[in-house]
């Protein structure tokens, strides 16, 4: 049961660590990397609070071992804002009141981030099914849908703007 050395890229930073094979990715991120954004909710892959992005796909980090991410690129909610500026999905949740207690929010944000890259112009129905792996017990989802719509609009507007020289 020896430890394994793993290397991965977390939020753009290359890291190398020794882990026990049984270490879940969410424990690794929270306890080794001190990235406590991904939350441990149900621990059974139902609630989605632990959602992170691995190699361009949304994954529930409570149901994946850290050793499985050898060589992977991982993005957590801490990696969304750039240069002190909120990402469009974060701005959307803030503007549209897409949270109350906030526990599910990191998972919602990382999932919305990937969902909008896969589908930049979603219908409400597509947002609801795209976000169906994330549970929220406060909002009733209405404002979460609005927040994702806000972010989708903002990302499309940003894409139209000319790149500054």
């Amino acid at each position, binding site marked *: 049961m020896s430890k394994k050395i793993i290397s991965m890229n977390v939020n753009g930073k290359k890291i190398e660590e020794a882990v026990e094979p049984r270490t879940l990715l969410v424990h690794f991120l929270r306890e080794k990397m001190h990235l406590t954004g991904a939350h441990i909710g149900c621990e059974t892959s139902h609630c989605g609070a632990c959602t992170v992005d691995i190699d361009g796909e949304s994954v529930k980090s409570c149901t994946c*071992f850290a050793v499985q991410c050898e060589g992977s690129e991982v993005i957590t909610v801490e990696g969304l804002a750039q240069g002190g500026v909120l990402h469009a999905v974060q701005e959307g949740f803030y503007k549209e009141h897409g949270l109350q207690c906030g526990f599910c929010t990191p998972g919602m944000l990382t999932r919305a981030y990937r969902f909008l890259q896969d589908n930049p112009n979603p219908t409400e129905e597509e947002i609801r099914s795209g976000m169906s*792996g994330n549970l929220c017990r406060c909002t009733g989802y209405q404002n979460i849908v609005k927040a994702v719509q806000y972010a989708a609009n903002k990302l499309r507007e940003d894409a139209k703007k000319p790149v500054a020289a």
Partner: protein
Amino acid sequence: MIPPSFDYHCPKTVSEAVALLTKFGDEAKILAGGHSLLPMMKLRFAEPANLIDLNKIPELRGIKEEGGVIKIGAMTTENQILFSELLQKKIPLLPEVAKLIADPQVRNRGTIGGDIAHGDPANDHPAIAMALDAIFVLQGPNGQRKVNAVDFFHGTYMTALAEDEILVSIEVSPFAPKTGYAYHKLKRKTGDWATAAAAVVLQMSGGKVTHVAIGLTNVAPTALRASAAEKLMIGKEVTPALLDQVAESVRSICDPAEDLRGDAEYKTAMAGEMTRRAITAAMVYCK
């Protein structure tokens, strides 16, 4: 919840994986998507000393057509099935089923092979594979062998896989034109297992049934193929009276476990109803 300790192995080829399985025997477990195994390990229902991860074996992934047969690698994920243009065109039942399995994050990890090899009657692919007359390709130290889906499931968590074998691919014939299909799954919420579900593959000619296959999910210790109900339909027009007989025949083979989704009587009744609805929905494609 922290799983028990184990040694982690990450083979790059199927033969390496088979060699590891042969070496460790019942001390080893195969790790596919992990969405059944990891929860079981956390609860210490499974405590393998060795975990053999199939995720880095490229030959186990992908969907292709070869010699008139669709071959689906066992490690193909539910999302790859859902978005496969080849399957949407040739076996549209499979993408339709994948859409009803779990949620987007879980579909990124969960695999068709894991869903089948786990031997859980609550999983959706076993009944689908039975209804599609799928063939499973198993690989062990002495090479490959093929097993029909209907002969694969021996009991809950018990399958035809030997201790040193791996399910490597699933083979299915493409649908003939105007083949009807449907999967009706009664579930309490997104991502839940079926309370009861029925898969139907149907062909008709001159208003009469020429071929029908009915697979049932989560209403017995294994997925079921409702052969007696199918026989009632061959050569007949589909009338409300015939659907009553078929539903009755389906109910007679159900033996569900009671749980929070319902008691045995309710699940049995729902299996009949899901079958009736799936047949009705499938008929639309036969016209």
